[in-house]
């Protein structure tokens, strides 16, 4: 009975999204991009790393939709593979940061006192270091790789999420149903799991969607500078960074991957805005 109710809530959100054009269109674009990057190998007969030095820096056309790069690799294929990394970076660190931020925020609001003070000061510390520079500290210690980029993104993002979740939890704790649960003898853990967490879900979904763009942009920036993801791994930011010197002869080499980043980020921003309107009409655009 209870389970059915929860499924209905999820179905309601989905139905509202399908009805809302502002959510539907970016959602479809994101699905198309995901499909392109997953089924990419079927669309092209090139390899993302195989070099063809006789056909370096070819203009678009001749079987290469976006031409070839400085090592003769097919740019279209590399964009498809780079999109996989962008999507991974969009989803994994953001999900981890939301989980960590949610745990920290709920604990701070629940336990108050010293726990609250320590967690919130830790979040303040993280928030007072510019994200890029915090990431550079992590990359100094761990070296540039996908894993260290994921770790730095989680470190950058959890603090801001914890602050929002803490406020939301304090608000929920004031509500009558929590009071009712406590007065019927529900323990602290039960109140947290059964009453507070389910009511945080809309906030968490919105936080998740709105943090995805900054994850993608941070990763691409770090890789662009050559300190994030390292070759032979493919990343859109890395492609744009290594094609920079050919900007004036072959602008599409840098702009094709950058444009893909823009399409992804734009879609996630649109979707995040729409989801917030659907789930949480009270809150305003930031």
């Amino acid at each position, binding site marked *: 009975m209870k389970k059915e109710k929860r499924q209905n809530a999820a179905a309601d959100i989905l139905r509202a999204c399908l009805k809302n054009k502002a959510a539907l269109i970016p959602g479809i674009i994101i699905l198309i991009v995901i499909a392109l990057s997953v089924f990419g190998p079927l669309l092209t007969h090139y390899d993302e790393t195989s070099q063809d030095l006789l056909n370096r820096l070819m203009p678009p056309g001749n079987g290469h939709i976006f031409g070839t790069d400085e090592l003769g690799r097919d740019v279209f294929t590399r964009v498809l593979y780079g999109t996989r990394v962008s999507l991974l970076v969009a989803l994994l660190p953001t999900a981890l940061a939301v989980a960590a931020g949610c745990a920290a925020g709920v604990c701070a609001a629940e336990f108050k006192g010293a726990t609250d003070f320590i967690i919130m000061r830790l979040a*303040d510390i993280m928030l007072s270091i510019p994200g890029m520079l915090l990431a*550079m500290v992590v990359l100094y210690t761990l070296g540039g790789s996908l894993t260290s980029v994921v770790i730095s993104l989680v470190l950058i993002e959890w603090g801001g999420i914890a602050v929002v979740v803490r406020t939301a939890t304090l608000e929920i704790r004031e509500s009558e149903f929590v009071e009712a649960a406590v007065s019927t003898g529900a323990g602290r853990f039960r109140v947290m799991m059964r009453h507070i967490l389910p009511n945080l879900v809309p906030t968490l979904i919105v936080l998740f969607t709105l943090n995805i763009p900054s994850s993608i942009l941070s990763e*691409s920036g770090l890789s662009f500078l050559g*300190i994030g993801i390292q070759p032979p791994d493919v990343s859109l930011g890395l492609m744009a*960074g290594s094609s920079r010197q050919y*900007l004036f002869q072959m602008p599409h080499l*840098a702009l094709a991957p950058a444009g893909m980043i*823009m399409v992804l980020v734009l879609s996630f921003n649109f979707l995040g805005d729409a989801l917030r309107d659907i789930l949480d009409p009270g809150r305003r655009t930031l």
Partner: protein
Amino acid sequence: MKGLAGRIIGVIVVLIGVVALIFVMLRIIPGDPASVLLNEHVSQANIDRLTRTMGLDRSLPEQFFGYLAGVLHGDFGRSYYIQQPVSNLIMEALPFTIKLTLLSIAFAWTFGIISGVASAMYNEHIIDYLFRGAALLGISVPVFMVALLLQYIFYFRLSIFPLTYDGSFASLILPAIALGWNSAGSIARLMRSELMEELDAPYMDTAKAKGLSYRKAVLVHALRNAALPVISLMALQLSGMLSGAVITESIFSIPGLGKLALTALQTRDMPLLQGTVLFTAFLIALGNICADLINTLLNPRLRTG
């Protein structure tokens, strides 16, 4: 002003935390920093000597409190690679970053506020959609893409501006636009939503009943109230701008703080990286306190707090 004193103490606590965090994060690296810095053909005696001069033979807490005491005196240690005090290098780089940041803040405020106000005043009109689309595009474009596009159009195609920084004001304009682009987008979005809320407030009816024109009522009354959250956002954006400065300064070859941090990372210069990161955290703390002060000055409701 009691609230302000409390804020400043809070900021100092957080800054000490930042020093500790960065200090520990840079030192959990495996291996001996002195031998990493020199290559493997160097004798153990030389490695030991470098370890001593770098103070790495002392215990970690000793090193930390030594460093903290130094930082309080403005001493951030000595750069491994450039063989100069880190504080000197930071002070040399600082003016460039300040110039770049101020110029891009000016750009972001002007563009963000104008388009935010225009899109709120012409709500659901074609102008609104255009500005809203532009703002959403603004927050969705990677900094490096804006920078490369600007270089392509304004240097290569039109040759109006120089390609990289050469000390002139004109050569700072493209980097400032590239850096301010994202902020302009988010300022416009917040400005619009705040102003929309104020437009429904009862005092707007009063203003209209008094005979003020709509435009005047918006610009004189609503804008003043809507400005407060926007000013807070601007302080938050300082952090994003310093992040973006790493990319912008690298693309346009500006010898500022971001470039310094990148060089430090690339040459594995730990004291320099540590000093630069800490210094940016100080700048952000300073920016937050300034935003608090401005908010208190503009909003009488906060003064008694």
